[in-house]
């Protein structure tokens, strides 16, 4: 009887935790990496999959292609590491490391968990160092 109760409690806890996780949506780090890889691959559908409706409407294929070209100019996408996070405002920054440079990836999440802004900032100072390391 006690074991049955314990298993029921565990199942209930797991359900609650699962619900909370689903409400929050995917982790910011995972979202940033998924979107960055989609942009790098010039995949429009995957890029806007987690965007909110207003932001989705602003994305055009030409802009996506331009951003993808800027990433490809830095070489292969290696990794994404968190730089700063402000959960209160839903703003997160990541360092995207490429084989020949890096970019700053900025992500802003709506309270609903959807992406309200995705921006990348090419870091000019990072490129020569990375290029020097590569050469």
């Amino acid at each position: 009887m006690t074991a049955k109760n314990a298993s029921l409690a565990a199942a209930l806890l797991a359900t609650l935790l699962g619900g909370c996780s689903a409400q929050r949506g995917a982790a910011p780090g995972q979202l940033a990496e998924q979107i960055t890889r989609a942009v790098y691959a010039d995949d429009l559908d995957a890029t806007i999959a987690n965007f909110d409706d207003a932001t989705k409407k602003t994305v055009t294929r030409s802009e996506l292609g331009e951003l993808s070209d800027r990433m490809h100019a830095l070489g292969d996408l290696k990794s994404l590491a968190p730089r700063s996070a402000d959960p209160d405002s839903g703003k997160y920054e990541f360092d995207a490391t490429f084989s020949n440079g890096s970019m700053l990836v900025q992500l802003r999440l709506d309270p609903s968990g959807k992406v309200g802004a995705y921006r990348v900032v090419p870091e000019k100072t990072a490129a020569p160092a990375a290029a020097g390391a590569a050469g």
Partner: protein
Amino acid sequence: MNFRRIAAVTLTGALALAFGSPRPAAADGAASTRNILFGAAAVGGTLLILNHNKKVHQKYAEYDQRQAQTQAEANQAEAAYQSERRAYAHEAALVSDYEKEAAYQHRQVVAKDREIASLEHSLVVAKAAAARAGRSTTFAQRAVVRTAGRAAQPALAVASPELVSYGWGTY
């Protein structure tokens, strides 16, 4: 007044006849009857005069009352007129203020209309330029970079003039 004078003369005459010429009391019945008649006439005349005076006073009182009422009505009408005049003056001043306010608001609306028209024109130009460039107006913008602060302090967001960010939405 004439009636009053006639009544007074009549009464005086009656009294003179009754008491003015003293005569020895007659023991006969005719004299007694005559004396009684004279006395009754005197009393009747006195009552007549008193009643007349009473009516005259009543008439004067009514007249005075009417005069007072007329005067009061006239005064009231004058006061009412003055009040109406003051109210009209106030309303005229109010209308003047309203006219001034309406004119001011009209000028403001015209100025705002011009401003809106100017902004709309600027927006149309910006949209046309963006359409020619084949991109949205927010795709490329000045980067807002969050500087890494200490753990106890929140990171600061600063706009970097030399860096440009590319993407969608406002960070």
